[in-house]
């Protein structure tokens, strides 16, 4: 048994080495003085300085955060209300809606991205064609390049708005899937009790339902935010002239690779690590207090 234990721990250690070696490499070489990910030339903070001076990357980081925060906020509100609606719906209607809701989650990212790209381009072509050039413009626009970066007067184009719409569309399903189970777990008589005690429906919703499903809302929002920050494929097809950090990285890898990327990844990894430690310590303290209380 003891031997088994050593063997299994060794196996786990190997896998974790495999998972973490590349990340460790990024972190170490972010402090490298040389313009290389292979040769170490001594410690420096040079790449961090250049990163903060790099308008393009910082702009992309700002875009990523802005689109993620906005998409998360909108999705959380819409998703929560939708979940409440679905909860009060008959199965016959609810089940097909939930099936469609699962499509963006289950589908390959590239298919979702391409579908949204086609959708936006078609709608925009219709808009520009009709508004700017009349009906014939529609077909011409469709035939022209999908990525028109320089709009003419009066034209609309793919950019931050389409990016945001795309993010909302893949974030909402996660919120719904996190809130709905919490609603199912809720004791329905609580709402009746609140209304018997004189609450209006709105008051009962605010004071009883929301606190009950709050953990679901929070975890839904967290997952939505993670999905948004991490997304590359769907953003890539819908961002048009806008850019996110992932798109910027992909572009850089194809042309010139800068160790600024190491600095970005180190900073991101550091933030996630600190957040995780805070969350875990808090949970651990809470558990300890609870066990001490009983």
């Amino acid at each position, binding site marked *: 048994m003891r031997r088994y234990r050593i063997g299994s721990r060794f196996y786990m250690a190997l896998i974790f080495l495999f*998972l973490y070696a590349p*990340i460790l490499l990024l972190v170490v070489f972010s402090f490298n003085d040389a313009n290389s990910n*292979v040769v170490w030339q001594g410690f420096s903070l040079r790449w961090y300085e250049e990163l903060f001076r790099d308008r393009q990357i910082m702009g992309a980081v700002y875009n990523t955060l802005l689109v993620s925060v906005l998409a998360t906020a909108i999705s959380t509100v819409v998703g929560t209300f939708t979940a409440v*609606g679905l909860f009060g719906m008959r199965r016959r209607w609810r089940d097909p809606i939930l099936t469609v809701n699962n*499509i963006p989650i289950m589908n390959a990212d590239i298919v979702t991205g391409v579908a949204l790209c086609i959708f936006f381009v078609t709608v925009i072509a219709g808009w520009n064609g009709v508004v700017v050039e009349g009906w014939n413009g529609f077909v011409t626009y469709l035939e022209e390049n999908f990525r028109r970066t320089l709009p003419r007067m009066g034209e609309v184009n793919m950019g931050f708005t389409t990016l945001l719409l795309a993010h909302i569309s893949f974030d909402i399903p996660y919120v719904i899937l996190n809130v709905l189970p919490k609603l199912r777990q809720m004791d329905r008589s609580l709402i009746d009790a609140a209304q018997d005690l004189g609450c209006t429906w709105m008051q009962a919703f605010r004071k009883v339902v929301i606190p009950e499903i709050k953990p679901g809302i929070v975890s839904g929002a967290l997952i939505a935010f993670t999905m948004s920050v*991490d997304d590359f494929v769907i953003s890539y*097809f819908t961002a048009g002239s806008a850019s996110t950090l992932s798109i910027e990285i992909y572009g850089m890898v194809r042309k010139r690779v800068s160790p600024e990327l190491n600095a970005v990844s180190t900073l991101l*990894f550091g933030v996630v690590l600190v957040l995780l430690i805070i969350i875990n310590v808090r949970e651990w303290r809470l558990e300890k207090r609870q066990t001490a209380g009983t």
Partner: protein
Amino acid sequence: MKNKIAWLSAPYVLWMALVVVAPIIMVVFYAFTTAEGLAQWGEIPITEIFTLDNFARMGTYTVIFARSFQLALVATIVCLLLGYPLAYVMAKEGPGFQRMAMVLIMLPMWVNFLLRTYAWMAILENNGILNNFFEAIGLFDLINRIFGTDLTYFRMIRTQGAVVLGMVYNYLPFMVLPIYSVIIKLDHSLLEAARDLGANSAQVFRKVIFPLSLPGVLSGVTMVFVPSVSTFAISRMLGGNNQMLLGNLIEQQFLGGAYNPYLGSAIALVMMIIVIVCMVVMNHFGEGEEQAVML
């Protein structure tokens, strides 16, 4: 009153019809049309606008289809072979250890996957970390002396192996998590019953644990296979230009040089069918679905 609440989801149902269902219908529409056909809209009968040309053209890309399936399949199998034992031994540890191991498995997923893949580029490069390491320990000297070759590096990047490695590295957690969550929920009395009835540990595993963990395995297989078969960033970064996959093909039709969204839609449609087949197989075995959705 019940029906009144249901109206709260009406806006989202409209939204889904517009942003989820309509785009998919458009993909199907474009998949069966061509630019030339659409240009003649109104001039020729509607039935002649719809063609199977795009699907016929896919024949030219058989190599890419075959390569995508082959690499995704290999990556899925490697993930299963690495991930199942990991999930299994993790589930046998104490609760504190398990929680930490879970965090450690999830943590890399929070680092942008392009950045992680980019790190592998530096490792696998011809004059990268691994080759430098082999050089330093004198591996090349040894090989050259024995075989009389003049090797100075191993070609690792821009090979199929590198692409598979990238897929395994990025998607291994997707295999471990569903299997793990099924194994920890296994009813221990079943295992004890099997042992009481005279099964040895290999038999318990083969006849009880493995069949019961199958929903998790299937969910993991789907969650690794689908992103692997549709990736275009990993193949682009670690495979270079000569390891094109289906994802790269689609990308080129939309944003690349080979601009042809009609053909791109047809390939995307094929990919959608692959996903649906995976889902049907998975749902057939039930359960595992929940975890898949949560990730």
